[in-house]
């Protein structure tokens, strides 16, 4: 009884496997031709002249994971952009380069601060967000500056915006850290109230650990709020290989 069941299950598996292989054999070439045509268009759109994407494995089977080669005279960003364009074609899996190496991943454009960072720095260059003495409530005179900062950060929604509070070295470090944190949180709340979403905002307090470069740690000018905008990198479901060094 058990024996016949095992035989039946195995026979079923063989039938399924045969069906899968027959389907792959029947549809593989068409899939390959279609992906190939779309990849050509994507490569042309990305400006990757001379780059080819091959949708066959070394043994000649159709695959949805292309191997890119060529375009050696093109710059790495152009090649990387071409690979990403090819990877975005529906149905395409992981993209690999024929000449890639382990170093390739590190060459990919690093997440860089967006221009909002510069805008905010420019705003805070001559003015500072002031707080009432020893407290974490923003001075009414600085509310307008917070308005402007929120406005400058708006184009970078979707990025991580870090709000960091600093103090000078006077007083106990422990209370300095607590005060810088609650001041950073006050600014974060101010930004929240101006419509910047909470999930992109991070507040932290460093106390007097990082004085302004070239300033005495005791100098009251060290009391400040800094903003850093970090571009968020979208999560990719499949790896996109970028060309390695040549």
């Amino acid at each position, binding site marked *: 009884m058990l024996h016949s069941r095992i035989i039946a299950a195995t026979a*079923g598996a063989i039938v*399924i*496997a045969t069906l899968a292989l027959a*389907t*792959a054999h029947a549809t593989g070439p068409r899939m390959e031709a279609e992906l190939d045509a779309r990849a050509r268009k994507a490569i042309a759109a990305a400006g990757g002249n001379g780059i080819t994407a091959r949708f066959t494995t070394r043994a000649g*089977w159709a695959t949805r994971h292309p191997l890119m080669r060529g375009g050696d005279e093109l710059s790495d960003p152009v090649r990387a952009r071409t690979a990403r364009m090819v990877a975005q074609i529906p149905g395409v899996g992981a993209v690999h380069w024929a000449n890639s190496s382990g170093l390739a991943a590190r060459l990919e454009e690093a997440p860089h601060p967006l221009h909002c960072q510069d805008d905010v720095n420019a705003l805070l260059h001559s003015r500072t967000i002031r707080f009432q003495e020893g407290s974490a409530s923003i001075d009414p005179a600085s509310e307008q500056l917070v308005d402007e900062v929120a406005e400058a950060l708006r184009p970078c929604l979707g990025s991580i915006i870090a709000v960091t509070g600093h103090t000078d070295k006077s007083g106990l470090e422990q209370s300095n850290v607590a005060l810088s944190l609650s001041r950073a949180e006050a600014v974060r709340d101010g930004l929240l109230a101006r419509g910047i979403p909470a999930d992109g905002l991070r507040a932290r307090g460093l106390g007097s650990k990082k004085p302004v470069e070239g300033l005495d740690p005791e100098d009251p000018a060290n009391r400040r709020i800094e903003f850093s905008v970090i571009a968020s990198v979208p999560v990719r479901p499949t790896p996109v290989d970028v060309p390695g060094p040549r």
Partner: protein
Amino acid sequence: MPIWMELLVLALFAYGVGMALGWLVWGRSDNEQ
């Protein structure tokens, strides 16, 4: 990975899941008879 291998793995996996479900739902009571 060639497409036939992806299809093969997927189809056999689905077959295995189907067999396991079938055994869970009907197979066990069948054995008791």
